[in-house]
């Protein structure tokens, strides 16, 4: 048993390095004083400096933040409602519709929403991107809320109702506070997913509105520059903070 355990630990360590080394390389080269991601020349902040003077990048960052905030807000409202009703009733249509956008390849949602928006004569931009992001965020919020719902002791709400609380009072004073960590975790996940989405945004963005991932894509298509490393590092830092918060609030949410 001992030897097998050691073998298992070594191979697991190998897989962890496979997961982290590439990202580490991106971070390290973002501080390298050379245009090439090859030899280490010396430490510099200049790529970050360049980044904060890049007008297109700043516009893209602003767009990303607007879209992510709006879609997280709306997806949290809709996702919470979905999670609660799915938990309470044996529904057929809603659970499938909540999962389907997550289960299908992203490109399908991207192109079908493109067809949809064009059919409605909608101009592509911040609004179309936000509407698309809400669609795939609802499921993640719903799953997070649902996981939390199943941990709530039913007798608490029943007791409140027996003591004469109205359904609304019962929801405000009992269910909502107990549900809050699941809702907040869902909102943070929705925000992260929206900030990170590339594929769906790529199809519904139109020509004028860029987001951070679209900006990275167009830069990477032309050439590999350390400026991309710098924005990547910042994005990773943001995600790290958000997801650690989610893990603290609701450990079950990330696993579903």
């Amino acid at each position, binding site marked *: 048993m001992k030897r097998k*355990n050691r073998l*298992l630990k070594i*191979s*697991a360590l190998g*897989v*962890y390095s*496979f*997961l982290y080394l*590439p*990202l580490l*390389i*991106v971070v390290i*080269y973002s501080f390298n004083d050379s245009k090439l*991601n090859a030899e280490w020349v010396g430490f510099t902040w200049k790529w970050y400096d360049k980044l904060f003077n890049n007008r297109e990048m700043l516009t893209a960052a602003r767009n990303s933040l607007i879209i992510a905030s709006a879609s997280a807000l709306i997806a949290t409202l*809709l*996702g919470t*409602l*979905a999670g*609660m*009703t799915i938990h*309470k*009733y044996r*529904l057929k249509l*809603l659970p499938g*519709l*909540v999962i389907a*956008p997550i*289960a*299908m*390849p*992203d*490109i*399908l*949602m991207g*192109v*079908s*929403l493109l*067809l*949809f928006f*064009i*059919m409605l004569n909608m101009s592509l931009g911040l609004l179309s991107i936000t509407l698309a992001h809400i*669609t795939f965020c*609802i499921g993640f919020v719903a799953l997070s809320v649902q996981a939390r719902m199943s941990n709530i002791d039913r007798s608490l709400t029943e007791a409140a109702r027996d003591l004469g609380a109205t*359904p609304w009072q019962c929801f405000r004073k009992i269910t909502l506070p107990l549900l809050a960590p699941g809702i907040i975790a869902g909102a943070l996940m929705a925000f992260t997913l929206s*900030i*990170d*989405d*590339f*594929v769906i945004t790529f*199809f519904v963005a139109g020509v004028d509105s860029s987001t951070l*991932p679209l900006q*990275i894509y167009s830069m990477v298509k032309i050439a*590999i520059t350390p400026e991309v490393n710098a924005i*990547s590092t910042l*994005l*990773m830092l943001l*995600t790290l903070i958000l997801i650690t918060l989610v*893990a603290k609030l609701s*450990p079950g949410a990330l*696993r579903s």
Partner: protein
Amino acid sequence: MHTSAWRKKLVSQKLLGLPPLAYLLIFFAVPTVIMLFASFRYAGDYGGLAPWYYYEQGSLSFDLTLENWQRLFETDIYLQLFLKSIAYAVLATLLCILLAYPLALMIARSPRRYRDLLLLLVILPFWSNFLVRIYAWMIIFSPSGALTHMLNSLLAIFGIAPISLMYSPTAVIVTLVYVHLPFMVLPLYANLEKHDPALLDAAQDLGASRWRRFWRITWPLSLPGVYAGSILVFIPVLGMFAIPELLGGTDGIMIANVIKQQFVESRDWPFGSVLSMVLTAAAVLVVLLGAKFGQQLGQSK
């Protein structure tokens, strides 16, 4: 009075599910139907879609066609690309199982207080930006990168000409595995965690070797986790366009690259819709097959 009040409550609370239901119907179900419909329409003169009905001498005529679907079978290019994409997805899935299994097993067998942390370490890279993770491999595979350099100096010792890793199917497969690995680890772990260690102890007492214990107990019990993870990896890989586009070159393209090309570059939306519908059907089929396998496993226990 009492029952009607209850019914009222039931109805009103079920109504709460209506807004998300409506939203998903409008922004997910309807667009999918529109895409199906678009696959029977003509392409517009300047790309996009042509009108599907017109008035001529006061009567309404429809302008729909099967041409786009016929085009799918005119050459075997598309069939080959689908098969190639399926092959890539199968290979990526198998490699994910190979890498994820020891990791998931290690986490499931480590002390309970470390498990959440170890699992979080698997999840974190998955939540970092998708393009950033692809970009990391563009650096690694780039001709000036350390990996290519090392590999080529090693090959030079044996007198083999230098090779390029960038823009090759190998680069695509490695990155596909890298990006989707957490999808395999999580369901596998969720399954392995539930195994009763007493089974392994009993087998050991009865003299079963380590390998025998693994293949006769752990592996068969973990199959539902393997299937779940395989579906989670296979479907997004099948529809992937960013990784082949950035790392694949001409040899490494997959079916989703052609879909993207139809919608963005050649602007032939009807044919793009045809290819998208075939991809949708493939994904749905995989989910259904997976569900059926899972059910059979559940029944046989």
